[in-house]
Each structure stands twice: as structure tokens, then as C-alpha cells.
């Protein structure tokens, strides 16, 4: 049985590297956003 990477290559140019880099950029954004509450928002929110 052919695996997905193999079919990728048959179908079009190999996008594996681009896919991995896109995923790295997106997960970096997610990690930064997820860490923000711990470092910033604690001092930013003051009840009126």
C-alpha cells in the first residue's frame, strides 16, 4: 500500500518541508499565546 508521503510526491512537488515549516510557525504562535497569561495579563487586568 502506498503511504501518504508517496502519494504527495506522485501528485505534485514535494511540499513536506514547507508543511513542516508552516506547522512550526503556527505552533510557535500557539505556544507564545499560551504563555502570555502567565507573564503579562496578571498585571494588566485591574477591576474598575
Amino acid at each position, binding site marked *: 500500500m502506498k503511504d*501518504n508521503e508517496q502519494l504527495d510526491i506522485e501528485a505534485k512537488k514535494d511540499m513536506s518541508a514547507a508543511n513542516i515549516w508552516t506547522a512550526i510557525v503556527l505552533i510557535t504562535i500557539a505556544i507564545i*499565546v499560551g*504563555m502570555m*497569561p502567565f507573564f503579562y495579563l496578571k498585571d494588566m487586568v485591574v477591576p474598575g
Partner: protein
Amino acid sequence: MSAVIHEAHDDGHHDGPPAGFKRWLYSTNHKDIGTMYLIFALVMLFLGGAMAMLIRVELFMPGLQIVEPDFYNNLVTDHALIMVFGLVMPAAAGMANWMIPMMIGAPDMALPRMNNMSFWLLPAAAILLVSSMAVQFIPGTGVPVNTGWTLYPPLSVQTGLGMDLLIFSVHLLGISSIMASINIVTTILNMRAPGMPLMKMPLFVWAWLFTGLLLIIIMPVLAGGVTMLLFDRHFGTSFFDAAGGGDPVLFQHLFWFFGHPEVYVLLLPSIGVLGLVIPTFSRKPLFGYKPLVFFMGFLFALGLVVWAHHQYTIGMSLGATTYFMIGTILISIPVGLMIFNFIFTMWRGSMTFETPMLFAIAIILMFSFAGVTGVMLAVVPADLQYHDTYFVVAHFHYALIPGAVFGLYAGVFYWLPKWTGHMYNETHGKIFFWWTTLSFNLTFFPQHFSGLAGMPRRIVDYNIQYIEFNQISSIGGILFGLSHLLFLYIIIKTVKGGEKATDKPWEGAQIGTPGLEWTLPSPPPFHSFTTPPQIK
């Protein structure tokens, strides 16, 4: 790596799915994973629906009938979490998995192994979620999770072991959503067939691009917030404890920074489905494709910065309150324009009223109603009266059941012939539509009145003056729940057989959008595109 793969190529292996449980457990196939997402969502629909029916049975009469107050609040909490994280998001992700690669001409998702993991985290999260409810029956595990889905401290710091299980469940759900979103965004950006620029993608694909980006931004904040909650519960921190220098209101900001855009996460895939169903059954190209994409982008951006309209009663400054009020009211502009776009698409079209189209029209009518009550709730002095009443419950059920769930039903009926290779029974589909729509309105319309009269939400008992509204709601709720047995029957019957579906089962499919899904057979082969499709 690629050289090795080329050498192994053309070795005569068959191209079909592997046999047995390995096909599902190890699957990297977008259609199989999509099917698993959809089955998971269906199971969760019945679990969350059963909880809702139990809530409505309890509220049929004032006083305590069948459940204890803490268990009632646990039901309210888990019903919400299951419907949001177990039903709507996985069902929308299932449709994305099934349809996006076929629509854009990709051989599969960009990161197929991560796709497998995204799905298989969900059953684990569901087990933790159900355990968080079951653990209350073990002596010594403390108070059940009675906070509502918002998990506000200090109550959530004081509840028992169930809250820890729930927090871990939310972590897994968050990881699953983030990974699925990364995969979908990467697939859309990198895997489109030659000749398909972004502005030629079907609206459903655009809707999921925005949904995926939204999830990547908001889910980590919820994960961070509940982790801080876990620290407060067990590791002596005081993020949300005023006695230790923290602030419980901080959690509300973190939760609603996630919670409000989450509404659009639930809503946008359904808008994408509308963008396909309405042109198909109106036999006219979508009116204003580019503006619709722009409006979705506007909704994406504005949705991220108006979260505190859920918290008007906490005592924010006048400036902050005014900002959040104006921002929230502004949201009605892109949403209203989208609705006009869909109405203009139908205008002078050759309309027919198959089940997906009936759901689409119902969405436009009933979601608009939720939009009107939404503007009412956005206005600060009015909201101070409506806050925490059944008016809010009625509003968000009108937003989410037509806005999200009916959109999913429209999608299921629209794509069921493509997925299964069989046409569903149109008469059964129409009976299901009228049954759900009428019973839904019977359930939630009276709640506007009980809310305006002051009936508070999330309380097991109520004053005797609200009894009529609640009895109508309960009868509607039971009928609404039972209608889903017909939904299940229709799906099983269609999967098992029926009239053979053609490659393009709807006459008007593909009008105006170059989605490639209709170029494939019904059902599509195990590997959709082995050579790049050409788009003219």
C-alpha cells in the same frame, strides 16, 4: 528520503484501505479520520443530548424532582462542554477532513500522522470528561464540577477531584484542536492544486482557514488559564485568589478571550456550508464571494477583541465597558451583510427545497433572531438586567443550534450522498427538518419570556410563576431530543444502501465555486487524487 520513496514506487501494491481495526487505529487517510470524527461527534450528540433532556425533565416542575442541585449543575457543565468540544468542533473537523483535501485537489492532509493523533486524543479527553462526572459517586472525592462550562474561580478552586479530571480533559481537547487546526491551515496554504489561488477556494475552505487560525490563537489561552487554575488548586499559587494578591476576574478575562471567539469557531464552518448549499439549491453563483471572505476576516479580527461583553457585571471602568459595547455591536455589521449576501444569492434563483436548503433557510431566519437578541445583550444597561437569566440561555441556543448545529445538519445532508455513495430518503430528511425546527423553537422561544421575567439560569429550582414557560420548554426539549433518533436512522439507512448517488448528486453543485469534490466518484476512492487535478 524522497529518493528512497521513488525507488519503492510502482511495486504493484494495492491501493485500498488496510483491513481490520488497523485501518482506523493507524489511519492517516483524511476520509477515514473524517469519518471517525463524525462518528465521535454523533456519539457525543446523544450523550450531551441525554444530559439536556435530563435537565429539561428536572425543570418540568419547580422544586427538586429527580436530581440533586450539585448534580444538576454538573449536568449543565458537562452538557455545554460536550456539545461545544464533543459535538460541534469534532463534527466540523470531520467535515473539514473529509472535504477540504477533495475541494482543493490535495492528495491528503498536509500532516497525516498528526491528523491521526488529533483525532485519537479526543476519545481520551471524552473518557476524562465523563470520569469527571462519574467520580462524584466515589466517597471522599469532594463536590462535583458545579461551576458551569465557564469554570469560574473561586468555586472551581473549591470543587473536588472531578475538576482536576476536567482540567486534564480540557488540556487534551485543546491539544487536539490546535493540532487539527495547524494541519488544516497548513493543508489549505500549501496543498492546493495548481490553478487554485486562495480567492478561488470554496467558501467552506475559507471558513476553515479563519476557524483554524482562530483556534490556534485562542485555545492556548484557555489551556494556560486552566493550568493556572490547576496550580491554584494544588501548588499554592494565587493567580485567582484575592487573599494571595491574585484576582478571580483575571480568569474571566482569560476564559472569555477564548470563549467569545469560540462562538465564531463554532459558527464559521456552518457559514462555509451555507456558502455551498445556498448557491447549489438556488442554482446561482454565490452573491459577493469576495465580500463574504472579507466579512469572515472582519468577524475573525473583531471576534478576538470583544470578549468582555460577557462580563459587564464585574465592574469594569466606563471606558472599557463602552469599548466592549461598541465593538460587540459592530459585529452585527459583517454578520448582517453575510446574511444579505445569502439572501441575494437566493434572489431570483431557481430554488428547490431539499433538506440541506431547508436547514440553510432556517439558519438565516433563526440565527438572525439570535443576532437581534445579541444586540440587546451587547447594550450595557440592558445586559445588566438580562445577565444570568434564561434570556441569555435562549439567546445562545438560538445562536448555536441554528448557527452551528443546523449548519452541520445541512452539511451532513449535502455531503451524505458523496460520502456514502447513496442518496438519503428525502421525505425522511424533510420530516427530520420540520421535527427539529419546530421542537427547537418550542424549547427555546419561551425561555426569552421566562428570562425577561427574571428566571435565573443554572439553578435547579425556580419560582412557581415560571412553570408554564418551563413546561412548554420541557415538552419541546424532549421532542427535540427524540427527533435525533430519526437522524440516526436516516444516516444508518443511507450508509447501508439506497438509491445510488451520482458523482454530482445535486444539479446546482459547483455553480460559482471550483470545488473539486464533485469531480470524484461517490463515494470517492480511498486515495482521492493520485495525480494533480487541473482547474480550468
